């Protein structure tokens, strides 16, 4: 078992990398939050594809995997709620794609974009309530001085100022950083959603079908 740490924003790049890994004899066995766990196997000339879907009931998930299995794709990683579903081509002569038209190929990015957006929306009420309850002060972004609580700190001079300032700085950073995490998380989610949405539009309108 080999562990590799990678992070991909692009499903296409992830597919390429995993396919390359399989060619080098490393087959994906599990995707974790931190990276990939890969089996060591004889090098395989295969293709790895990723679909993005959630399932609520086990029967739907089983049916989904059977459809792919019947069509020459082995489900190698992913579970009901994980979203990303990894498939390996089993039939050497078979299809190399899991989507045969632009609409369905693009829809995968749309589903991913919706996930990021719902994550952002889920964090938003928490952020707002933190601001209203006073736990988070957006002004501190502009005036980092607000993070220091020692009375009269800014009127001190020389060595006593430096001592007090340096003593409190770690606490100020902790106080500032800990609640900065939420806005950053929300922005990150929105950023990822926007990126997936852009990919959706690019795939959908990149090659016009028919007229």
């Amino acid at each position, binding site marked *: 078992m080999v562990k590799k740490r990678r992070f991909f924003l692009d499903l296409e790049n992830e597919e390429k990398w995993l396919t390359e890994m399989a060619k080098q004899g490393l087959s994906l066995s599990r995707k974790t939050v931190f990276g990939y766990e890969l089996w060591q196997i004889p090098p395989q000339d295969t293709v790895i*594809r990723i*679909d993005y879907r959630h399932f609520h009931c086990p029967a*739907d998930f089983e*049916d989904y995997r059977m459809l792919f299995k*019947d*069509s020459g794709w082995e489900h190698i990683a992913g579970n009901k709620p994980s979203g990303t579903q990894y498939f390996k081509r089993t039939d050497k002569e078979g299809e190399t794609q*899991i*989507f*045969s038209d632009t609409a369905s190929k693009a829809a*995968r990015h749309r589903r991913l974009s919706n996930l990021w957006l719902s994550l952002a929306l889920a964090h938003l009420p928490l952020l707002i309530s933190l601001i209203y309850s006073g736990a988070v002060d957006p002004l501190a972004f502009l005036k980092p001085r607000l993070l220091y609580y020692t009375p009269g700190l800014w009127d001190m001079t020389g060595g006593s100022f430096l001592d007090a300032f340096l003593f409190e700085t770690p606490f100020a950073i902790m106080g500032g950083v800990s609640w900065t995490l939420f806005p950053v998380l929300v922005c990150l989610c929105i950023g990822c959603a926007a990126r997936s949405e852009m990919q959706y539009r690019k795939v959908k309108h990149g090659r016009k079908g028919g007229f």
Partner: protein
Amino acid sequence: MKRDKNLPLTETAYYILLALLKPAHGYLIMQKVEELSDGQVRMAAGTLYGALEALLRRNFVKPVQTDDSRRKVYVITDEGKRVLCLDCQRMSHMIHVTSREGLW
């Protein structure tokens, strides 16, 4: 005359509905569609799954009970049949007027 909002069906939706006049599971639908279209419409697994999901949502197909616990089997609904018929009439009208206008 106001046209049904479900028209026109996409080529894949049309063939899937046609294939589901008889109950079938996912892979069987793919094979049937390929056969019905003379090999012109070859659907990949992810595309078929999404298309079936959309047809289920619009109530054009429904799942049926079978012995196979691992694969779901679907069949066309009355609503699906109605839309399929309408789309067929739409296309035969196109063929009719094309020949009347003297293309061939």
